[in-house]
């Protein structure tokens, strides 16, 4: 087991190094590094200062080494717009994104599992067919388009919910959250629903498939024969068995929620990392772009590492296969 974890850790480190090479060369070789890393309205003296500070006159491998050394110390350059360290800005915007992603995860579980359960128990009913058709739409509709429609319907036409921003935030422990005030909850609902749509569809399909499979199993028949009420069979016996895969998959999808939040945050003007990234791209604020990319790479590599380790704990075959390869 230890060998497996060490191997995976080494692989993850290789991936991060590879990605840093790609990001570095993407920014510094494909593009013009002076244009990329110096603010557009800098004068000649500033440009010269930056060139010598970044060592752009040195060989490319030395430049890469400097970039790595900076990154290892948490220094990925300063934002042109805000003048603060890029890494610090992204970390400041991270709680808002995490809050949105967790709300979306909650919605997809709270809505997807009951709907999927119903569709699995009564597959021929009209409601189930509607739910399944809607879940197909949930998979194929572009997220940004659904977001626009939500704004038109609930914010412009009905006027029930606010369309942009985060609302009142309250400081809980060490970060600000919208989830503790009524105004904040109103603000978080639409973006969270928008972000959750794909995952709600996923949860519906997984739960439905699980329920349909479980209902034919011997343990359900046996429970029936013992005279246990249908209600109890479903809520205790069936649910226990289908929840494990559903929750595992939904957990794994958390990373993609963070990735997709770029779109949702831009539409709803949610002040998270994703909106920061899009604004940075549009305003040519390169250090933030580089920092965001590196953080996301790190984030996904860590998620995949954890998933691999958890899977290998649950399923020894994964471990053995790896040793054989």
């Amino acid at each position, binding site marked *: 087991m230890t060998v497996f974890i060490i191997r995976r850790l080494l692989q993850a480190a290789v991936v991060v190094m590879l990605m840093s090479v790609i990001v570095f060369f993407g920014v510094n070789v494909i593009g013009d590094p002076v244009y990329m890393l110096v603010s557009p309205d800098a004068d000649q003296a500033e440009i010269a200062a930056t060139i010598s500070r970044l060592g752009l006159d040195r060989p490319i491998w030395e430049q890469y080494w400097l970039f790595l050394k900076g990154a290892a110390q948490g220094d990925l350059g300063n934002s042109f717009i805000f003048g603060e360290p890029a890494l610090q800005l992204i970390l400041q915007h991270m709680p808002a994104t995490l809050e949105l992603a967790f709300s979306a995860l909650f919605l997809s579980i709270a809505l997807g599992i009951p709907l999927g359960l119903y569709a699995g128990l009564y597959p021929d009913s009209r409601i189930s067919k509607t739910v399944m058709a809607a879940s197909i739409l949930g998979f194929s*509709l572009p997220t*940004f*388009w659904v977001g*626009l429609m939500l704004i038109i319907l609930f914010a412009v036409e009905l006027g029930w919910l606010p369309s942009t921003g985060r609302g009142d935030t309250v400081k809980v422990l060490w970060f600000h959250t919208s989830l503790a005030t009524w105004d904040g909850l109103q603000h978080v609902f639409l973006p969270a629903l928008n972000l959750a749509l794909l995952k709600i569809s996923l949860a519906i399909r997984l739960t439905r498939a699980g329920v349909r499979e479980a209902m034919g199993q011997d343990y359900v028949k046996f429970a029936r024969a013992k005279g246990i009420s249908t209600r109890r069979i479903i809520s205790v016996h069936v649910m226990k068995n289908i929840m494990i895969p559903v929750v595992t998959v939904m957990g794994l999808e958390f990373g993609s929620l963070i990735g997709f939040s770029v*779109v949702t945050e831009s539409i709803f003007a949610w002040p998270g990392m994703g909106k920061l990234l899009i604004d940075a791209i549009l305003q040519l604020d390169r250090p933030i772009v580089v920092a*965001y*990319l590196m953080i*996301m790479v790190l984030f996904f590599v860590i998620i995949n590492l954890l998933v691999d380790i958890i899977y290998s704990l649950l399923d020894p075959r994964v471990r053995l296969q790896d040793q054989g390869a």
Partner: protein
Amino acid sequence: MSDATLTSPAPRVETPFRRFAAEFFESKIAAGALVMLLVIIVLAVLAPWITPQNPYDLSQVDVFDSRLPPGSDAFAGYTMWLGSDGSGRDLYSAILYGLRISLSVGVVSGLIALVIGMTIGLIAAYAGGRTENLIMRVVDLQLSFPASLVALMLVAILGKGVDKIILALVVAQWAYYARTVRATALVERRKEYVEAAKCLGLSKARIVFRHILPNCLAPLIVVGTVQTASAISLEATLSFLGVGLPQTEPSLGVLIANGFEYMLSGRYWISVFPGLALLATVVSINLVGDHLRDVLNPRLKK
């Protein structure tokens, strides 16, 4: 249509294509989706000849026509059934021109990704050993990032432009094709006809491309349709965010983005109609692809 021959076991004396078509049209939804998709493609191709104006020819656009609601008459006399946008373009014309761009970007990037992914997948399946291990590690690594995030990262580094968007979409999608082809090819290469071809002394390249590849086409077509739909939708998303196609290449995503600023003031049509066109395109491609999967998969046959 050799794929249909090999996947449908029915012994009737029909041409393979007819049998395939008959099976496909059994589903009314899929047939409807195919008709809708064909209509969309024809409209997009014929756009310059069937629209009342060329929305990007400044001599034909009148600023006095801007932000007219659907059904208003334009200054030039024709009726703008879908209204006009912020600069006075007829939305119906702009949507058809936008469809051309969206469809071509989606299809071109899909085809390039297909060819690249297919070749890499075949190499992995046929070479085996270390080569295969290395290729599949890269594929797995890439698939662990959401395609939208990969495309966004590339666009963030590369910048705007048609060529850059196509490159980003290709990089974001090739791995899906590679994985599909490799999985199918692994099964195919153990079959007897490959053995026979080897005994005949055919070259490796010939066996891979003339014998194994045609038998991998069925799943490739299915993945290809679904991935093209997602490429179109991804391009629209990037363009909507302002990091995709530039204003000089107004795809549907760009049109929707342009209408966004008018939406809160109730001028819904500038965003909504291009959005509906995008929706119709993506959903019809997905429905066709979904049904193709059922028809082309022999395991699902009754």
